[in-house]
């Protein structure tokens, strides 16, 4: 394997101070392998979203180191981080992914437009074809279904050929059919284009599309699973749920 697309060493993230201090991430070491689809799971408050935000350069780090490729994120100022995000990171959020005043196509090329970069038209057309968006390009977000909107968001994330795409509950607001479709697209982009994807989810079915699942609890990585199936994931989660009770 080549070097990891993203990695964290002794990553600690705390909010507040003194008595009210909350440790969101506690000395996390993690490598996100290039060309892999990684899912991050865990109960609410386990720190899975925080981990993603820190890896993506959206949130600051309290202690430790985070690398995107071989770039250390700690110490980058806001402008450098912004530049890094638009050139090397793709985002898909749970909801509100698109700028309502722009058409689907304009939304897809938004990061390149903002950066003033030329759009790679061949690649763009390929992405649009993969996501089956050809007929929707001139529509405004309000004229698209939820699934279509999320596909536009994925296309935007892929358009810049980022080092990593971070997806935060991308299917959270979709019905199961649209969700499955979207996950299928993500899977294909990993298989066919070698795209690295990190996806936060609490849905075992969604997680089962990944190559590898990281399980977080109380700000630590407590387990990981390769070649998951929905049943295996569900069982593992049920086991987690029981853990505290066993401890009592």
């Amino acid at each position, binding site marked *: 394997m080549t070097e990891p697309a993203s990695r964290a060493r002794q990553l600690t993230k705390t909010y507040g101070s003194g008595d009210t201090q909350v440790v969101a991430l506690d000395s996390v070491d993690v490598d996100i392998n290039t060309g892999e689809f990684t899912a991050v799971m865990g109960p609410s408050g386990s720190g899975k979203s925080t981990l993603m935000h820190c890896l993506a350069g959206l949130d600051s780090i309290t202690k430790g180191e985070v690398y995107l490729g071989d770039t250390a994120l700690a110490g980058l100022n806001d402008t450098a981080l912004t530049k890094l995000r638009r050139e090397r990171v793709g985002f898909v959020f749970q909801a509100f992914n*698109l*700028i309502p005043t722009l058409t689907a196509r304009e939304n897809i090329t938004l990061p390149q437009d*903002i950066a003033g970069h030329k759009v790679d038209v061949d690649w763009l057309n390929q992405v649009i074809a993969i996501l089956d968006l050809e007929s929707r390009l001139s529509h405004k977000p309000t004229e698209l279904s939820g699934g279509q909107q999320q596909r536009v968001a994925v296309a935007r994330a892929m358009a810049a050929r980022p080092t990593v795409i971070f997806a935060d509950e991308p299917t959270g607001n979709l019905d199961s059919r649209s969700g499955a479709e979207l996950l299928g697209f993500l899977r294909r982009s990993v298989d066919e284009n070698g795209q690295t994807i990190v996806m936060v989810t609490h849905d075992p079915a969604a997680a089962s599309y990944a190559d590898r699942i990281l399980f977080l609890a109380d700000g630590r990585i407590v387990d990981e699973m390769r070649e998951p199936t929905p049943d295996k994931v569900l069982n593992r989660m049920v086991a987690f749920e029981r853990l505290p009770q066993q401890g009592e």
Partner: protein
Amino acid sequence: MLTATLRTAFAHKGRLVLSTLAVVLGVAFVTGTLMLTNALDRTFVDIIEGSAQDVQVTREPAVGQEITTDPGDSAPLLLSDDAVATVQGVPGVSAAAGGIAREGVYLIDSSGEVAGAVGPPAIGLNWESDPELNTNTLTAGRAPERKNEVAVDDVTFGKLGIAIGEPISVVTPSGTVDAELVGTFKFGETGGLAGATLAAFEPKQAQQLLAEPGYWTAIDVAVADGYTDEQVAASISEALGDGDLLVRTRAEQVEQQSDELRDGLAFFNYIMVGFAAIALFVAAFLIYNTFSILIAQRGQELALLRAIGATRVQVLRSVLVEALIVAVVSVILGVGLGYLLALGLAALFDSFGLSLTAGIGITASAVLWAALVGIVVTLLAAIVPAYRAGRIKPVAAMREIGASDERIGKVRTAVGVVFLLATAALMATGLASDDGGSRALLVALGTLLLLISVVILAPLLSVIVVSVIGPLFSLLGRTTGRLSVRNALRSPKRMATTASALTIGLGLVVAVTVITSSAKASLGELVDQSFGAEFVVGTTAQQPFSTEVADEIRNVDGVEYVISESGGPVSIDGEETGITAVGGGPLDEVYSVEDVSGDFGQLESGQAVVNTEYAKEQGWDLGSEVRILFPSGDERSFEIVGIYASNGLIDGLVIPLDDYREVGGASQDRSLYVTLTPQADTQQVLADIEAVADTNPLLQVLDQTELKEQTESQLNQLLYLVYAMLALSVVIAAMGVVNTLALSVIERTREIGLLRAVGATRRQIRAMIRAEAILMAVLGAILGIAVGVGAGLALQRAMADAGIEVLDIPIATLIVILVLAIIIGVVAAAVPARRAAKLDILKAIATE
């Protein structure tokens, strides 16, 4: 429900700050004006009361009572020593004496300038030695007792820089007097003069300089104990037996003079309140926008209230209560700020020499007006948003409400078009009208209607204008520019309301600018084409000066004619009108007029010329006899010898100045036109004339170019004053831009967060918000310029007869206004843009 309302208002107080501030400014302007005029009123009434006599006898002018200010260049209406003796003999009169007071007596200070302000009267009077009749109190030195001694009021004394016992020059209607300053006195009870200056002479010299030997301008009477003023006044009237004499008691003097004063102040008040109304009107747009946006943002919250059982009326009422809170807070702050504003203006007046001795006070009527205006404007502006809030359906609570695109109502467009057509019809009717007065009125109304039409059509016009100018914004960065234009277009109504607030202020600025510029251009052309004199001799504020000046200039080598122009109120066939009197040379030497029938040259005694329109109106022709009644009571006949087409220099009925002087008119000159002989050395003549004019520091000698410059600078002063007044509404409109942007940044928090997440830098976010602000401001300016130029054009056409014949659209000023709009946009965007750029990305994305 009330608790919920108060909580909401409190929770959103940040979003209401600018609306409140806008109302505060409008209210402050209203209250400040009212408090200032109240102080002016009390100051002047103090002066009037301080100088009133128990009973005073004056001669009533035969015509001209409608003209309240004494022009000062008519011969005073006199009472003889005999009349004084008659009054002294009336039972109940404890003391009576002739008195003189006349305007046009200027004190020259140590630096050779006229003491006191330009505007307030400079009065000459006689020193009354009888303490019963003298309203003034000696404060230093002694009273004037001999010829060429003068005492001055102590306020003016402080500004003279001349000590008691030193020589002083006094400019009087009968020439300049070299006198000695012998004493100072306090005027009336308060000593306040509001900028007027007083110079007292001993009675004989006062008569000689200001009236005629043996004559007075008034008889002052002190009433003996045991008699009322009314009884004595009645007895005096009877004893004098002259219907042309006015005998007034103290109460009547105060009442009549106060009424005259209040008419003047009321005019000032109307103008100031008019500007305040414009500012408040603009503030109403801001309030309307704020509440509309707040209600759009709170849609779900309001729907929830409806879902859990609040009635439509309760929701509506809750919004209005919120507006009422804004109004009450604004009124309280506005009255406070208005008080400070009035104090500031009073200080400014003081620096001009107009001391408001009565002081500024918070008056009940100012507070009541402020409360009424502030509350009514705020509630009216909030009523439509409140009604819309009430119409939110409970089911909306379950739906996600975003900032959705809105459509421009067809009804609104239709109403707008109807208004626009009505505007066109009104303007066309106005311009077609024969009567100058109704023409100006209809066109002015049309201007107002035009503004309203544009405000109604603003959303549609905004979309059109933005589509045209939008592409320019891609210069600011392709995506940023595109996003700004799209954001602005997302809510055309909101953008239009914000921009129209600016349109109103700037539209009026442009209209006034076009008119002023046209007036300047017309005047320039008039002077070039119709003005035949080489020099004009006169004073800046049209103060009259001694006729000796004209006589001396006539003696200068190389001067051909010195033509004096004067005029005043007369009565023709029972109708009061104004006439012009010209003497000293042929008319055509100084006035170039067209379409003359008959003569337009040297007017002989008993001859008159008249302009075509007035002749037609009166049915006069060459040879017609016109009977004119003058203020002195004299009536004379004149024969029409010429009919001419009027221009801005000369208009109406013109009679010989000598005839006018014989009936008491123009005892002084106001301006002299000087023509030269062909061989004259212009520079030498100018130097000689200036030497003559130097005897009176008020006088200046101007050639044609300087005359143009001076009238232009006078028009500019007026223009700047109007600009200053309209600045308030432009400032409030700029606050509206800030307000709309700030609220829309809050509304678009998630969107901005997303832009930041996918790689927009803070600088790009700032640029985007700034571009939106510039777009709105430039839109407001473009609509304002369109309205202003349209209105200015119509007004110029309407006033073409009144001397504004040339249309001049000042392109440079329009460009300045556009640049100003861009600056307004940049400044208005500063805070919202910074706030948007500083949004925490994660929090922004998480915002619901």
